[in-house]
């Protein structure tokens, strides 16, 4: 690219992502949270990787409207929509496993932190996978991604009261699914 063209690019609106280099920076800044979100929704590392890549490919096609300050929300929403479609197809194909085994996540680096063991984490992930999509997504976005009710409402395209209701119901159902495990554990 000649110097004067580069100068033209530099004086364009910096709120928008205007070059490939900016796009790479966008991916570097967001790949971890998008991958984590996709993994929490899908429960599979390879699928989460594919979903993350597909999200960024879609972002590339929408560079003309993608603004820096709202890119995280846009990417999250795209990831949720993508994963929801994949989950729907997965269930439709009939290969949604009841005894779905999640990959064993890496243990916390701090051994002194009170965390449950790998088996317990698998139990929790299996239980989450059994929730209806609307409860699962709301619960994941709130409890695992730490999003606000308004952010979740924007991503899921529903009112805040509905979001709170879905989160409440999701937690209740999750608790009922894990009750036998934790009550036995407690005893």
């Amino acid at each position, binding site marked *: 690219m000649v110097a004067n063209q580069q100068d033209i690019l530099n004086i364009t609106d910096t709120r928008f992502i205007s070059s490939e280099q900016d796009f*790479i920076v966008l*991916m*570097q800044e967001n*790949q*971890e949270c998008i*991958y*984590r979100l996709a*993994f*929490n929704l899908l429960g599979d*590392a390879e699928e989460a*990787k594919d979903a*993350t*890549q*597909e999200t*960024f*490919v879609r972002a*590339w096609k929408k560079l003309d409207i993608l603004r820096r300050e709202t890119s995280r929300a846009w990417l999250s929403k795209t990831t949720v929509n993508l994963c929801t479609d994949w989950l729907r197809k997965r269930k439709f194909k009939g290969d949604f496993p009841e005894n779905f085994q999640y*990959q064993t*996540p*890496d*243990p*916390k680096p701090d051994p002194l932190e*009170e*965390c*449950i063991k790998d088996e*317990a*984490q698998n*139990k*929790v*992930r299996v239980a*989450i996978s059994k929730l209806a999509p609307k409860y699962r997504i709301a*619960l994941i976005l709130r*409890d*695992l991604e730490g999003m606000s009710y308004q952010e979740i409402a924007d991503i899921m395209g529903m009112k805040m009261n509905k979001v709170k209701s879905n989160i*409440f119901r999701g*937690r209740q159902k*999750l*608790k009922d699914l*894990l*009750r036998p495990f*934790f*009550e036995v554990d*407690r005893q």
Partner: protein
Amino acid sequence: MHCKTVKKLMEAYIEGELDEPRSKAIESHIANCQICANELALTQKVHKAVDCLSTPPVPGDIISNTLNLIHQRSVSRWLWLRKWPVVVSAMILLGLILFGIGYQRFNTKPDLTEEQIIEASEGLNLALGIVAAGTQYAQNTAIAEGARTYDLVKVASVSTLQEISKVQIEVSEKIKANLGFLSQLNFDEVKNNEEF
């Protein structure tokens, strides 16, 4: 506070979303209700379990894979064009034909013939002559019959002449434009015509 209410508010209590009076009411109830105390303990365990969930490390090739995917999909789109050369050629040709038709249709053309322009110009000159003669007559009459009559006629004549001047300018401009267009079409014929 009833057990049903405590159960309903338990999540909000753990999240810290309740006001102080209701929080204290729940704590007071739990202190005296083993069932609700067990339920609270279970709820807190589930929350802790969810909080402790971790994810695998991010694969290191996501960015490079994404860029490859973008490149592959843009190349495959061009490959589609190479695969269907006849279709693509026909589409381009059709586009050019439609563009030519549209250009020809919407191109500016004169809305008067040459004869009409000449006739209109002669008519305008005649009208100007009549107004000038009438003004002179009015002036002469006014001198004979009184200055006031002259003033009235003079005002009318002046305003009429002004209006005619405006029209004359517009018509002149239009005549010029149309003549210019005509001259481009048949320059030699116009050039040899004595009237021009």
